[in-house]
Structures are given as structure tokens and as C-alpha cells.
């Protein structure tokens, strides 16, 4: 059935080739995407399984390579989490791999910092300069002046291996930007191993969703969506969503209520109230596993009547009551769902604890169709990973640097350089925290919960803290980080990055030329995801752990290199013992060694891309499983009910239930931590008044301070994600940008009428600083503003206006900034990758008569870390709106 190539079409192809001659190609290089491609022939193309890198899900995919080009990404049917599914973003990997403005050579700046003038240098020159700057830091005993800061580090430990071997605690991340507010309640309830839940959506009958949007974004969304859609459409499960806008999840929900931002906790509280009032709680489960009495809970939620919640949230009391009853009656095949919508608020951490309490109260935790928990990340024989082959970064590992403090085993020199106020605060901390303290960038002392469980950090404060000179920086290395575009108050990020006194040297590692890399002194080109190896494992919504391999389909473009290769080379050149930790000869040998305990050969693993023991029992009721004879060897087994079982070393491994040792949860008390005094403890340690809701040992609803008495002409400005984009990373993926290249101010038509604006009108949106106990709270006046056009949607909450945050780039090339001409530097880019789609600029560029590439909004969003935990309260912003 194939169409034969006629003379005519051959001639046409010839004319297309001739047209491409107008593009400034280097004569000797091929530009395969500058002309129409030959049709895919699946009998000849080569299929290689790998792992997608387009978002945080990391789906198993198959990449098809024809004539040396990656032409198509499809789902890997062996991936038990995706079951062979994927989303549009997967094709974005091809877009960024062959993006014409991808960086292919090491670059050194030649003009002023930020001026955009660069020269191409060799890798030897790049290494020499870096080693020349890094080596003295180590030799002079100040390795902490090397600050490594990443946006997406999917090297599974290579970078930590490097920073540890170097001796710096500064391996900074952006978890606070993303999800620390919603991880804290989970770790408090269920232990460090379960910072993310894994609802059994395939078998559920009822889901109450507090602002989660798995049908568009959400870590795990792709894994959740097909299961939940099957449960809904084929088996009649019900999905109820509380949202502030008509997200795809809200639009596909059986019931969708617009809710006042920051009041999800009030709705959850009223559901708890109703379930207890109606006697629909699972008393047996609660008494057996919750570390808090049901009577105390009853007292706590007594005032949370549905009518009270209606006044807070706008959701009708009768609906709250009905939903609570339906939810409880569906138990155990019911579950809650929540993510940023509920959590990215001043009261989000405690609100999420109320939501988490709902599942415990109806006893659906770990049950079929319920709120399950399944093993996360690398397999190292931790809780829930028993019997799995041990996978670990090859030895010899480098140990963590010494914590900063006073006394033996502490880094006193670094500690004593800290501001006096900080030293005093840290000296007053409990001993367990002192052993985890590594200075203000890694472990900000005002936000101890950001590093109590593990180092989530408070990324948005890194730049203000550097500006305040809380930490001296000599070499700043950013890695796949878009802070200069995407962090709140990104103007402060750029101000600090441009200050050569604060940041004497900035080396950026990335695949593209973005806002962050443009402010560097040196850029190192990283190999893209289709060009490298990586180890992958995550929680499986099919509830049986699995692991997958990212592997190269093609060689790295230009002179780009992988992180393991770059860091091995750097470690050897710096020497001084670092080289002993980087003994692998090449990337493949490193990952092969990592996977040496898999029961299938390395070659077979590469062929399949995924490994799972599908005969393993699903992760239901892990907490009821008896401790094995092996685990009990040398252990002390007490007799009394609820006593803890400890192993030979004294570590808690289980709890006595019905007179027998079972595992319980991986919390210190092996129960579910509905009550946790870590919150008041942290509050006392940092001086947060105990009246602040964040200090409560049990979940509770407390108002977002700046939302109380919100005036008639003030609105709440919030942001959201589109399904075709990934944070600020995808603005230049051509097919994603074609669909979403703008970010209008969405509002309810009634809001528009009140403001006197129509669709298409422009407005100026001015944002105020938050109230409460947070960074620069209560400062008067407008902190930032932007102009954008308006669109109406009836599903918007009338007090809320929203823009998406992916677009409005001024770097990232023709597609990224929605313009017609290249903006990236002429050196070091890839004329070799010219793309016919971009030669004349994109159709939505203003020059081509289009609407342009959207508006950057992050300068107008205040840094607003939640007390204690430090998660950015992205969705609390109070604003005013003027028609222009």
C-alpha cells in the first residue's frame, strides 16, 4: 500500500533541498531536519527501549532510530507503571535533542557577564579552568565554597558522589519549589520511605481529589490517569475534584467544585467531622494503627461543620456532607488525592495532614482500591524492598562531609563563619538536628523541617542568602537549572548571578542556551537523555516494584558529554583522593556494575529496558506483614501489645500486634503519625509562635493570613501547568510550544465584568507580598507586576486569576521565545541541526502575524516559603488588576 515516489515528487524534494541552501549551513555538515524526512520504515528502523526524560514521571519508552536519527518515541509495553502508555511530552525529547539552538561545545564568555558573547573552547581548556578554580578550595580547606545547584538531576547519585568526594555539602535542589509542603505530611504519617503515595486507582471506587491534576501534570500522573480512567469509564468509579480552574482532571471529574484557594483543608476537616458524626469511621483500623485517640480527633474536628467549611471554601455544606458519606461508604476501595492545589499554601502542610487523616479514618490505607504506599527509588533493601535485588552505586562511595557545628566530628571552621544569630539558633537545636546541619544554603536553620527527614532544602532562598552573604561562594555550578527564569523573584536570581563579587565564577551545565546559562562564565554542554545511561526506579501504581534503564540511542551530539564522564574527568584532574571514587572506565561499565545483582544479564536488560518480578505479591498491607525469621535473628521480641521490636543493633524493625511481631510502618513508633510533635518542636526551635497553625502536632485548618478579609478589588493570583509542558523546560519543544505558546490571564466572565474587561483586553496585574511568618512578609506596596491579555473560562473561581508559567522565555531560541530570529549566541550552536520548521520563525511569532511567545511572570511572584518546611506557597499571591 506504500505510495511510490514519482518523478514529480522527487523533483519537489529537490526543490525543498534547494530552498534549504538559503540557510547558513556549514558546507561540510548535514542538516537532516532542514528538509522533509523520508517516511519511517518500521521494518528497517532500530528500536531501543529507554526511559523518557520529558517530565518527572520517567516512563518506559521505545525510541525508533532511522538513518541515524531518533524519529519516534513510543511507550514500552513492558513498563508495568505506564503499561505501554505515554504522553505528548515524550516526543519533546526529539525536539530538544535536535534543537537548532542546542549547545554542542564548551563555551567561555568573552564579553561582560550576561552580554551574550562567547567563544568556543576545548574540553581541555574547560577542565583546566575549572580545576584551577576548584582544586585550591579543597586544598585550602574550604570545599564548601563550591556550590552545586541542580534543577533536574537524573544521574541517580553521580553528582552526590562528586560533591561528597569533593567535600562540599552544597548539592542544592529545588524541592521546595515543587513539593516539600506535600511530602512533609506523608513522611510524618508514614515514614521517610513513603514521601509519595501510590493509590490503587485501578481498583478504586471513589476518589476525592483536593486540587490534584494527574490528567495534566502531577508526578505519577501518567501512571495514574489510565488506571483511573479505566476505573471510571469501565467500572463506574467516581472522581470528585475541588479545584480553582477547569483543569483537565476537573473537567473529566464526575463532580467538580470550584473552591476558594487554600481552603481544601477546611473541606477535608468537615469531611472528617461528618464521617465521625455519622459513625462511618473504621474504629478498628484507627485504634490499631493511628498514634492518636479517636476521641481527641473527634474533639479536634468538632468545630469543622460542613456549614463552617462552606463559609470558608464556598463548597455547599450539603455536598461536603454527601461526599464524606459516599467516600466513607466506599471504603476501603476509596482514596484521597492531593498535590500542589492543596499544599502550595501557607496552610498547605497542615491542610494536607487533614486530608491524609481521612484515609486513616476510613481505614483504606494499604487496602485494595485504597490509599496505598509502595516502594520508592533505588533498591537497597529498605522497607518494602525486601527480596528485591540490591542495586547501588558502585563502591567505593564517598562519605558525607562533616556536619557544621561545635565539637568533635563537626566542621567548626565553616560553622564559625556563619552569622552569630544563626550559630545561636543551631546551638539550641536537638542533637539529632545538629548532626544534620550543613550551613544556611543546604540546611536553612529557619526551616528545619526542610531537612529533618532528608535534605529537601529551600531553593528559593539560596539567592537571597548569597546576597545577604550568609555563605561565601567561589565556584557556583548550576546543572539543568532554570532559576533565572522559573524561581519566584527570578529578578533577584539574575541580580545575584550578575554580581561577580557574590558569584566570582559560574559554570552552567545544560543542553540548551537558556536564561540561566546565559548568565554563566562557562557553559558545559551535557549529553541529552537520548544519548546517555541512567538508572531508574519509582513507585509503581501497579504496586509491584520494577526498575528500568535509560540508555543511549545515539551518540552525544557535537562535543556534549554525560555527567558521569565529566565528573570522572574532573575528579581525576583534581586528584587529592577524589579519583579513588571514580574508578569506572566508561558510563556503560558504571551502570552495568550498578545492576550487577539483577537476575537477568546486562544485555537482556538493555534489550527489554525494564525488569520486574511480576510474581511478587502486590504491596497491600505491608504494615501487617510478619517480620521474617531472618529479620528476627538476634532481635528482642517483647510480649506486650504495641511494643517495639528492635534488631540486634537496636534499630526498630517492627511492632507487636496480636502478640506477634509485624512490620508496622517505617516511622519511629511503627504507627501512623497522625500526631507528630516535630511540628511544635520545630516551631519552638525557630521562634515560630505556637498559635501559628504550622506549629500544630495534628492536622488543622488555619486561614492563609493574607486571604482573611480579602478586599473587593483584590484577587488571588495563581499559576498552573499545561499537559504539553514541563515547568520552564519545554518552552522550546516545537510541538509543545505550537499548542501552548501563550499564558493569558484566565478569569471568570463575572470577574471580567467586575473589572470592566472583555476577552482580549490587556490588564496589568500587581502582586503584593504575603503576610504571616515568612520571608519579607507584610512589606507594603506592590512587589511585582506584569501585563498580559485576558481570557474567560466559566470554571474559574471568581476570586482567582491564573496564568500558566511555562512560556515567556527571552532565551531558548526561536521556538522558546516565540520570535522569528535566533537570539542565542552564534558560537557553539548547531547549524548542523537546522530545522525546516524554524527557518522562517514559528507561525505564532509576532513577525509572522501571530500572538507571540507569552509573558514572563516569575519576577512578579514573591518568595514565600511556608513556615518550618520552606515549600514555596505559589498559590497564595494577593493581587490587584488594572485594565490598560
Amino acid at each position: 500500500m506504500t505510495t511510490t515516489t514519482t518523478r514529480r515528487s522527487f523533483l519537489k524534494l529537490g526543490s525543498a533541498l534547494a530552498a534549504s541552501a538559503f540557510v547558513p549551513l556549514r558546507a561540510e555538515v548535514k542538516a537532516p531536519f532542514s528538509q522533509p524526512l523520508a517516511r519511517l520504515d518500521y521494518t528497517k528502523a532500530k528500536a531501543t527501549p529507554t526511559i523518557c526524560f520529558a517530565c518527572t514521571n520517567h516512563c518506559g519508552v521505545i525510541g525508533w532510530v532511522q538513518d541515524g536519527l531518533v524519529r519516534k518515541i513510543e511507550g514500552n509495553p513492558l513498563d508495568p507503571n505506564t503499561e505501554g502508555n505515554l504522553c505528548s511530552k515524550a516526543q519533546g525529547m526529539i525536539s530538544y535533542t535536535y534543537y537548532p539552538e542546542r549547545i554542542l561545545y564548551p563555551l567561555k564568555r568573552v564579553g561582560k557577564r550576561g552580554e551574550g558573547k562567547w567563544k568556543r573552547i576545548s574540553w581541555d581548556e574547560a577542565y583546566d579552568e575549572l580545576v584551577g578554580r576548584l582544586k585550591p578550595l579543597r586544598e585550602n580547606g574550604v570545599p564548601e565554597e563550591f556550590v552545586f545547584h541542580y534543577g533536574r538531576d537524573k544521574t541517580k547519585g553521580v553528582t552526590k558522589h562528586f560533591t561528597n568526594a569533593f567535600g562540599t555539602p552544597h548539592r542544592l535542589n529545588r524541592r521546595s519549589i515543587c513539593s516539600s509542603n506535600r511530602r512533609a505530611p506523608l513522611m510524618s504519617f508514614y515514614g521517610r520511605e513513603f514521601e509519595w503515595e501510590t493509590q490503587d486507582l485501578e481498583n478504586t471506587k471513589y476518589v476525592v481529589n483536593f486540587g490534584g491534576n494527574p490528567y495534566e501534570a502531577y508526578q505519577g500522573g501518567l501512571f495514574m490517569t489510565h488506571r483511573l480512567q479505566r476505573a471510571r469509564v469501565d467500572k463506574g468509579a467516581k472522581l470528585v475534584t475541588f479545584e480553582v480552574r477547569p483543569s483537565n482532571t476537573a473537567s473529566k471529574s464526575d463532580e467538580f467544585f470550584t473552591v476558594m484557594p487554600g481552603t481544601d483543608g477546611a473541606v477535608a476537616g468537615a469531611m472528617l467531622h461528618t464521617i465521625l458524626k455519622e459513625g462511618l469511621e473504621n474504629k478498628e483500623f484507627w485504634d490499631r494503627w493511628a498514634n492518636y485517640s479517636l476521641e481527641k480527633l473527634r474533639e479536634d474536628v468538632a468545630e469543622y461543620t460542613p456549614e463552617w467549611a462552606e463559609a470558608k471554601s464556598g463548597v455547599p455544606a450539603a455536598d461536603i456532607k454527601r461526599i464524606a458519606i459516599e467516600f466513607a461508604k466506599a471504603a476501603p476501595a476509596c482514596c484521597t488525592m492531593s498535590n500542589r492545589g492543596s499544599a502550595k499554601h501557607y496552610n498547605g502542610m497542615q491542610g494536607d495532614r487533614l486530608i491524609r487523616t481521612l484515609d486513616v479514618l476510613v481505614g483504606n490505607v494499604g487496602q485494595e482500591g485504597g490509599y496505598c504506599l509502595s516502594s520508592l527509588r533505588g533498591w537497597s533493601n529498605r522497607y518494602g524492598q525486601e527480596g528485591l535485588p540490591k542495586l547501588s552505586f558502585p563502591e567505593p562511595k564517598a562519605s558525607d562531609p562533616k556536619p557544621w557545628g561545635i565539637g568533635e566530628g563537626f566542621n567548626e571552621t565553616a560553622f564559625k563563619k556563619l552569622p552569630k544569630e544563626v550559630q545561636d539558633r543551631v546551638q539550641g537545636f536537638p542533637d539529632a538536628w545538629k548532626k544534620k546541619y550543613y550551613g544556611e544554603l543546604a540546611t536553612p536553620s529557619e526551616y528545619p523541617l526542610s531537612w529533618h527527614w532528608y535534605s529537601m532544602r529551600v531553593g528559593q532562598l539560596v539567592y537571597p542568602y548569597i546576597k545577604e552573604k550568609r555563605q561565601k561562594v567561589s565556584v557556583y555550578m548550576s546543572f539543568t537549572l532554570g532559576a533565572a527564569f522559573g524561581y519566584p523573584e527570578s529578578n533577584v536570581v539574575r541580580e545575584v548571578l550578575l554580581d561577580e563579587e557574590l558569584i566570582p565564577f559560574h559554570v552552567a551545565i545544560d543542553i540548551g542556551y537558556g536564561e540561566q546559562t546565559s548568565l554563566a562564565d562557562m557553559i558545559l554542554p551535557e549529553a541529552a537523555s537520548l544519548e546517555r545511561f541512567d538508572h531508574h526506579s519509582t513507585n509503581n501504581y501497579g504496586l509491584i516494584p520494577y526498575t528500568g534503564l535509560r540508555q543511549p540511542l545515539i551518540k552525544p551530539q557535537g562535543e556534549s558529554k554525560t555527567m558521569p564522564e565529566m565528573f570522572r574527568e574532573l575528579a581525576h584532574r583534581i586528584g587529592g583522593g577524589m579519583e579513588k571514587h571514580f574508578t569506572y572506565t566508561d558510563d556503560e561499565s558504571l551502570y552495568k556494575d550498578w545492576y550487577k545483582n539483577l537476575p537477568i544479564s546486562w544485555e537482556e536488560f538493555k534489550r527489554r529496558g525494564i525488569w520486574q518480578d511480576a510474581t511478587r505479591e502486590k504491596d497491600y498491607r505491608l504494615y501487617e506483614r510478619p517480620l521474617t525469621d531472618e529479620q528476627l535473628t538476634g532481635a528482642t521480641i517483647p510480649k506486650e501489645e504495641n511494643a517495639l521490636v528492635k534488631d540486634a543493633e537496636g534499630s526498630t524493625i517492627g511492632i507487636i500486634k496480636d502478640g506477634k511481631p509485624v512490620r508496622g510502618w517505617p516511622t519511629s513508633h511503627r504507627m501512623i503519625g497522625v500526631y507528630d510533635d516535630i511540628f511544635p518542636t520545630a516551631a519552638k526551635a525557630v521562634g515560630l509562635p505556637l498559635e501559628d497553625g504550622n506549629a500544630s502536632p495534628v492536622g488543622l485548618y488555619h486561614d492563609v493570613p493574607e486571604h482573611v478579609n480579602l478586599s473587593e478589588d483584590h484577587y488571588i493570583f495563581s499559576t498552573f501547568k499545561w499537559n504539553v509542558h514541563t515547568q520552564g523546560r519545554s518552552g522550546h519543544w516545537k510541538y509543545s510550544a505550537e499548542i501552548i505558546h501563550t499564558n493569558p490571564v484566565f478569569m471568570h466572565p463575572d470577574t471580567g465584568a467586575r473589572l470592566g474587561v472583555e476577552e482580549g483586553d490587556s490588564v496589568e496585574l500587581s502582586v503584593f507580598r504575603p503576610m504571616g511568618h515568612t520571608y519579607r512578609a507584610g512589606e507594603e506596596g506592590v512587589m511585582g507586576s506584569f501585563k498580559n491579555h485576558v481570557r474567560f473560562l466559566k470554571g474559574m473561581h471568581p476570586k482567582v486569576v491564573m496564568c500558566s508559567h511555562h512560556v515567556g522565555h527571552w532565551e531558548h531560541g526561536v521556538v522558546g521565545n516565540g520570535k522569528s530570529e535566533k537570539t542565542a549566541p552564534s558560537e557553539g550552536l548547531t547549524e548542523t541541526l537546522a530545522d525546516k520548521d524554524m527557518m522562517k520563525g514559528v507561525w505564532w511569532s509576532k513577525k509572522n502575524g501571530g500572538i507571540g511567545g507569552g509573558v514572563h511572570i516569575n519576577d512578579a511572584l514573591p518568595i514565600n516559603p511556608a513556615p518550618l518546611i520552606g515549600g514555596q506557597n505559589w498559590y497564595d499571591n494577593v493581587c490587584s488588576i488594572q485594565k490598560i
Partner: protein
Amino acid sequence: MPEEMTLPWERIGSEFRKDYKRAGMLVDLDRCIGCHSCSVSCKTENDVPLGNFRMRVRYLEEPEDKKIMFAPLICMHCADAPCLKACPSKAIKREGDGRVFIDEGRCDLEKECIDACPYGAISINTEKEVAEKCDFCTHRTDVGLDPSCVENCPTDALVFGDLDDPESKISRLAKKNDAKAWKPEAKTDPSVLYVSHDRWMEKAVNTGVQLDEKDADITYEQNNLGKKH
């Protein structure tokens, strides 16, 4: 997983091709979540230029409700295809299984097909200088694969199969869910059928697959709000 298992992506070749009497597609809007995986996968698969579309997912606000509906639109492979009749160069042809395709070698860019199509399914690919539209991924179905959009749909909203075989999955689902043609008044007997679409959606999409200044779509934003930006 036994060692040396045959992998799904290795079962490809003409021997796996399925012969259909009437190739068709079912689009279930209850299942569709508007993820754009089908349309973006189509672009990659068929090297469709920016600005041209073989498939496009439309975002349509419900007139009487606050939700958004999602509608993937493609060439309907009509049994009574106006484009086929309109083409002066006879470049639009029908395969044995009923699908309608453009013979690129014969296309003379007369564009009559574009005006004739009630679904906006055809556009001019200026890079190749030919008219362009969906052909149900002939190069894939020839070797036993589903069309790219079907393969890449994460919620089974798209089903490809034989509409003339009452036992086929597509026929059973079409019957069970009362699948209907989009815009039946066009009277073209489409081979693409929709589950759970309403008449208001047919009006709201305007022409359909291609960008149009009259589109009231929430995505693919254009300079069409009649206002300065």
C-alpha cells in the same frame, strides 16, 4: 519475563498486517483527557510541519457548564469523500480497506480538496509542496502496527479496526456506546465515529482540524480575540 522473550516491538512486518474490509476509528470523548499525545505523536510520525495538522485536539468550553470538553479531530475517511471527487488531478485515492489517501506524486496543489472537506482535514505542506492529510498511517498498518495516534493514546480513547466486522473491538464498542458521525449533515458517511459528542461541539470547532481565525479554542492561541494584545 522469561529470558529471550520475543519483545512486542519485534513483532513487526508485512506478515502481521491485518486486512480490513472497512478501516475505521472510534474516538471516545468520555475517555479522552485532552493530552494531545495523539496529535503530537502524529506530527513526529509523519513529519508534519508546524502550522499544518493531520490531527488536532480541540479544547471546547461547555456552553451550559464550567467544564472543558476535548475532541481529537482527524480526516474522517468518508465512504462518500468530497475531497476525492473534488480533486482535478485525481491525486486523492481510496485504498482497498476504504481509507482515503493523497498520492503525493500526483498532487498539483489545486486546493479544491481543501474547500471540499467539511472537516478541515486537508492542508498544504509548503515544504513538500503537496496537500497533506491523515492516511491512518499506512506505513504502520502495513506492518501490523496501529496508527500512531491510536498507539500513543494513554487512555484507550482511540480504537482502530474493521467497522465491517461485527465481532471486531471497534464494532462492538461503536454499538455499545452508540457511536455517531461528527457533523452528520455533511452526509459523507465517515469511517471515524465519535462516542459522547454533542451537536454544540460540532458548531464550536468551526472547520475542524486546521487552524482557523474563527476558532474559539482555548489552546493554539492565535491573534483572533479581535483585540490588541
